[in-house]
Each structure stands twice: as structure tokens, then as C-alpha cells.
């Protein structure tokens, strides 16, 4: 078979040149196929213009995550909006305020938490499989496997996971788990969705939420920009957002459509395809060692 021979030559060329290098150059890295969302994956649609910035979701989240939040009254403090905040070990979701270009008196609020990617970078990066993507949507973390290397935090394109730097013995990576520990069978909704007085969020099947989002945009083109954030960003996410202004004005900074793991996994797997490249290198070096061996007579002269 000619393909076999071609494969063989390719492998041989690779190993001879000393590793992965030539392999990747001779065959331009094609990203492996995009990961499709599981059919029953759940998600949340955030209708940004509905949010009034009451922060009761922050309260509910802290409670659901097992921390004892301060009284809900304290969350009415608007001074926190002076600075954009990020999710932290004790608050896995935060609301930030942005100025409204259409009406300065009516600011826009946006909610940040784990996006629950379809093809999560944290999960691909983790060297001990501490992250897993459940069929029903959530990306969940297993503290018992974790080594605490924090590569997940480096890898996340939305910069979501946070870390217990102050804990000497049992620090954890902290992030929203879509209340996976509370709603295993989707009979219940995540705590933030449940508490929201303005019904900003809709919990449901991702596929149906996408339809709903596009329908809302179609019906009210004067309210929404024609973009569902999370439909394609980072390979698609379980959390989807619709907004009255472009998304870079409400705190989003990642707009690449490709899921980050596609490129790294392609490179990684090319280097180790069926262990053939390393074994070929081993064989070739062995052959070189044999061929270059000094013959007995000449070595005796030394």
C-alpha cells in the first residue's frame, strides 16, 4: 500500500530529525474536529438588559456553594461596582456594572461565572483528570485528584478558576459548577437562576436556549445586538448571553471561536501517535549507536 509507505517515510523522516519537529512542519497542524455539545446538555441564557444589579445571585451562589454568606442586605451595597470584580474562591459569580452608551442614567449589569465550555481548556490542561464535562452540561472539579498545579487557571480563556492561596494544606480550585451538586437531575435550577427577581436567566437545554436567544434578537432588533455570546466563543459554552451593546463593552475579552484544546491536543497527539514517533526515534538512535560503534582494532590504538 502506497499510503503505508508514505506513512512510514513520514515517520522515518520525523524520527531522524530528532522528534516532533519535522512531523509538525511537514504536515501543517490541522486542528482536530470541533467537539459537539452533548444533545441533552443544559445551559443558561443571560438576558443582560434585564439585570438590575441587585446581586442576590451572588448571595444565593455563596450559600449554594456551602459558604455562609453575610446577610442578603449587605449585597445591596452598590459601592462594589466602582471596580470590575472577578470570581473568587468565596464568590463564584459576580455582577459588574458598565456604562450604557444609549442612556447614561441606566447602566448595564453583567454576570460572570464559569462558562461551562463544551470543549473545556481546563479539562484538557489538567494532568490528573480533575475536571470532567458532564453529559448534562456542567464542568465539575474533583479536589481529591487535584495536585494544585493551577495549569487550569493558566489555560482558561475566560480566566475563571480561582485558588485558595491562603490554605496551606487543602487548597482547592474554586469555580461555579452549575450547582451540579444540587441539581443532579435537572429537576431543580441552579441557585442563581432560582433567586433572580427579574428572571434574567433561563435554565434549559442549550439547543433550545440558542433558539430562544435568536428569537429574542429577531423580535427586538432595537434592544439586542445580533450576537449570542457563547454560541461559538471558545468552541461554544453552556452559558449564553444576549446584550444591548457589543460584548467587549460589557466585560468580555475572549472572542476566538476555536476551542483552545483543539490545537494543543493535535500537536500532542501527533508527537505520540500510537507511540510510533518516540519508538522510531529510539530505533534510529539505536541504529546510529550500532553503526557508529568504534571497531575493536582502532579503539585499541587509543
Amino acid at each position, binding site marked *: 500500500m502506497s499510503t503505508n509507505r508514505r506513512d512510514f517515510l513520514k515517520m522515518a523522516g520525523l524520527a531522524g530529525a530528532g522528534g516532533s519537529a519535522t512531523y509538525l512542519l511537514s504536515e501543517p497542524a490541522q486542528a482536530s474536529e470541533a467537539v459537539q455539545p452533548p444533545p441533552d446538555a443544559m445551559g443558561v441564557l443571560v438576558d443582560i438588559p434585564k439585570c438590575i444589579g441587585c446581586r442576590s445571585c451572588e448571595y444565593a451562589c455563596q450559600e449554594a456553594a456551602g459558604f455562609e454568606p453575610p446577610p442578603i442586605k449587605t449585597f445591596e451595597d452598590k459601592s462594589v461596582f466602582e471596580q470590575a470584580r472577578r470570581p473568587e474562591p468565596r464568590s463564584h459569580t459576580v455582577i459588574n456594572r458598565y456604562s450604557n452608551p444609549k442612556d447614561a442614567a441606566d447602566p448595564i449589569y453583567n454576570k460572570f461565572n464559569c462558562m461551562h465550555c463544551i470543549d473545556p481548556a481546563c479539562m*484538557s*490542561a489538567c494532568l490528573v483528570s480533575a475536571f470532567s464535562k458532564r453529559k448534562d452540561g456542567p464542568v465539575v472539579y474533583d479536589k481529591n485528584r*487535584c495536585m494544585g498545579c493551577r495549569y487550569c487557571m493558566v489555560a482558561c480563556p475566560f480566566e475563571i478558576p480561582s485558588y*485558595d492561596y491562603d490554605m496551606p494544606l487543602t487548597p482547592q480550585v474554586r469555580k461555579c459548577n452549575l450547582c451540579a451538586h444540587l441539581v443532579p437531575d435537572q429537576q431543580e435550577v441552579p441557585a442563581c437562576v432560582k433567586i433572580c427577581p427579574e428572571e434574567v436567566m433561563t435554565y434549559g437545554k442549550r439547543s433550545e436556549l440558542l433558539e430562544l436567544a435568536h428569537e429574542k434578537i429577531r423580535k427586538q432588533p432595537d434592544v439586542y445586538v445580533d450576537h449570542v455570546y457563547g454560541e461559538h466563543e471558545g468552541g461554544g459554552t453552556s452559558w449564553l448571553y444576549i446584550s444591548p451593546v457589543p460584548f467587549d463593552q460589557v466585560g468580555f475579552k475572549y472572542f476566538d471561536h476555536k476551542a*483552545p484544546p483543539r490545537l494543543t491536543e493535535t500537536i*500532542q497527539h501527533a508527537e505520540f501517535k500510537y507511540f510510533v514517533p518516540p519508538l522510531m526515534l529510539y530505533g534510529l538512535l539505536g541504529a546510529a549507536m550500532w553503526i557508529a560503534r568504534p571497531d575493536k582494532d582502532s579503539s585499541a590504538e587509543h
Partner: protein
Amino acid sequence: MSEHHEPLPVERKLLTPGVYLLLLLTFIGVCFAAWRFTFGLSSVTNLDQQHPWGLWIAFDVATGVALAAGGFTAGALAHIFHREHYHAIVRPALLTAMLGYTFVGIGLMADLGRYYNIWHPAMPWMWSPNSALFEVGMCVMCYLTVLYLEFGPIVCERYLKFDKRFSFLTKISERIYPVLNKIMPLLIIAGVVLSCAHQSSLGNLMVIVPAKTHPLWWTPIMTILFLLSAVAVGFPMVIFEGIFAAWSLKLKPEMHILSKLAKFIPVLLGLYLGFKIGDMVVRGTYAYLGDGSVQSTMWIIEVFFGVILPFAALLSARVRNSPRLLFLACLMIVLGVALNRINVFLVAFQPLYPVKSYFPAIGEIAVTIGLVSLLMFIYRVIVTYFPVITHPGRARAA
């Protein structure tokens, strides 16, 4: 048999003022490390939610791995390509690699939040072959084992040839020595393969975050650049150490070997430089060079002083034959590759939502200096008692 010098224990006084200094620096580092293990990472480091990796990953781990590359490059040259001329450099290079990787592990322990789980990647039910870090972890674990086995014969030789006070050690050595020597070719090749694999995978680590890595360094061929730079820094590291160790042990540097070895460097360094510049041209990232940012300045320092200048210098025979100039040129390459790793993991890393910028805390620097000092101290102890260094003029009567 007469012209071949054999490696010998140095057998000089161990506790010199320099060694006391190393022990003092180690002690300071240990104090900060103890603080970190008692009160958590935040008590000693400047890491924050936006900067999960700091000096300990960029230097102790990434730079440590790169600078230990002398072990496999020297091994390949002397044993696989049978350039017998270079046998004298193999043992010091091997020792550096063995200690280097051991300290990568120790340094990593300080950085890991759950350091007691460091064995997890080896457990099949936690394997995660999609992760570049998994590949690095597995290869480093295997390679460390290979390095200890490769070093075995040197330990045996002490008890076979130089120190027969412990009859049981001599007896064990008699058993192990021939076995280790028999499997040595297999180990040496395994060392080269494992090194190529994880040196390149280390370059794949940041490929997953184009969003946070400055385009001057981010490229899909980071794997290739990491491998080529590791290969290029191998011999300079061997030469730098060889001359440094000779000077501090008051021996003559083995210039007849080192100058010859230096001839390979422009070839290997040139290959790395070619790929680095080629990648820059293809991706058009030279556009960032003129913007006066910290990143562009650091890139220029890294490539000009760490690659181009020593590359040009080593083309000259005068530089290669002068211990002082050769030492300087090799030191520049070593610092250049070290700076590359620091640039990739710290300088190029730009969080999307930074609260403050990261600069290593005193404690982080102290731990790193402590680790390097301890490594140098153990190196000194081992060459004092075990036959690692070959020195002309002190050949044992055959």
C-alpha cells in the same frame, strides 16, 4: 591505556568559605519554604488569581529542565555517536542533569498546592493524555529514574575502586555494576528519547493560551523552539560548568575537549535562531518589536545577547580557545535560554483581567536561590567523593 584519563574523586577540603555561603543561602531558602508550607502560598508568594504561575514554575521548573539538557546531549554525542574524545564531559553533565531534575521535583513541590498528590499523574485511572503537562510529568518521572540508573555505576565505582571500608557496599556494587553497564546503552537512548519528548512538550504548555500569551512568544511551533533551544543550550551548559567547576576546584579547565565541543554550538544555536526568526517572519510578529513595551525589550535582550552575540562570538577560534571568552560566550547562551523560559512563562503572560502586575516576592526569590545553592552544594559533595571529574595531570597510575 595511558592517555585516557579516568574520572577521579576530587578529594579536596569540602568546607571552604564558598561552601559555607551556599549553606547559608540554603538555610534562608529553607526558612521561607517552611513558612510557605505552614501558612500557604499567599504568605510567601506574590501569586494572585490572575497570575497562577510565578518564579517557581518559570525558573525552578521550566528553566531547570532546559539547563539540565547537557545530560542528554553530551550522552548522545559520546555514547550514541561514539565521539570517545568527549567521554570526560559525560559524567559532570550527567550529574548536573540528575541533580537538575531532582531539584525540578523539589521546586515543584513548593509550588503545588496539594504537593502530597504529586504521584497522581502516574496512576492509570488519572492519566490524561490530552494534557501537555501530563506528558511533561510522565517523561520527567521516567527520565529521573533513567538518570539515577545511569549514575549508578559512578556510585559503584567509589566502593569498587576508591573506598573499601564498607564491605557490604562493595559487595552490592560488585553485583550491580556489571548489570548497569550492560543495560547502559538502552538507558542512554531512552534518556535521549524522553528528553526530546518532554523538552518539546514543555513548549506546548502555553500553546493552549494564545489569549494570554504575548505574540512575540506565542506560536504553534513553541514545541520545536523549546526542543531546539534545549539542544542548543546543552553543550554551553556543559562548558560553562566545566570551566566554572575547574576554577572553583583550582583545576585546569580541559580546554582540549571544551574548545572542540564549542564548535558544535554555532550549528545548534544557529538552527534555533533560524527557526525563531523564521517563525517571526512567517507570523509577522516583528511588528511588535518597535512598540517600546517591556515585552519587546525583553525579546530583544533575549535574542540579541542570548543568541545572536554568542553565536557570532563562537564562530571565532580565538573565543573558542580562550577559557575566559569561551566561558563568557557559554554563560550568555545559558542566560539567554533561561531568559527565554522566564519570558515565556512570566513576561509574555498577560492576564485578561489583571488587578496588579506580578513580580516575584522576596520569599519566592529566596527559595529559588536556596534551591540553586543546595544543588551546587550537593554537586560539590558528590564530585568530592565520587569519580565524576576527569582532570589532566592527576591520572591514576594504571
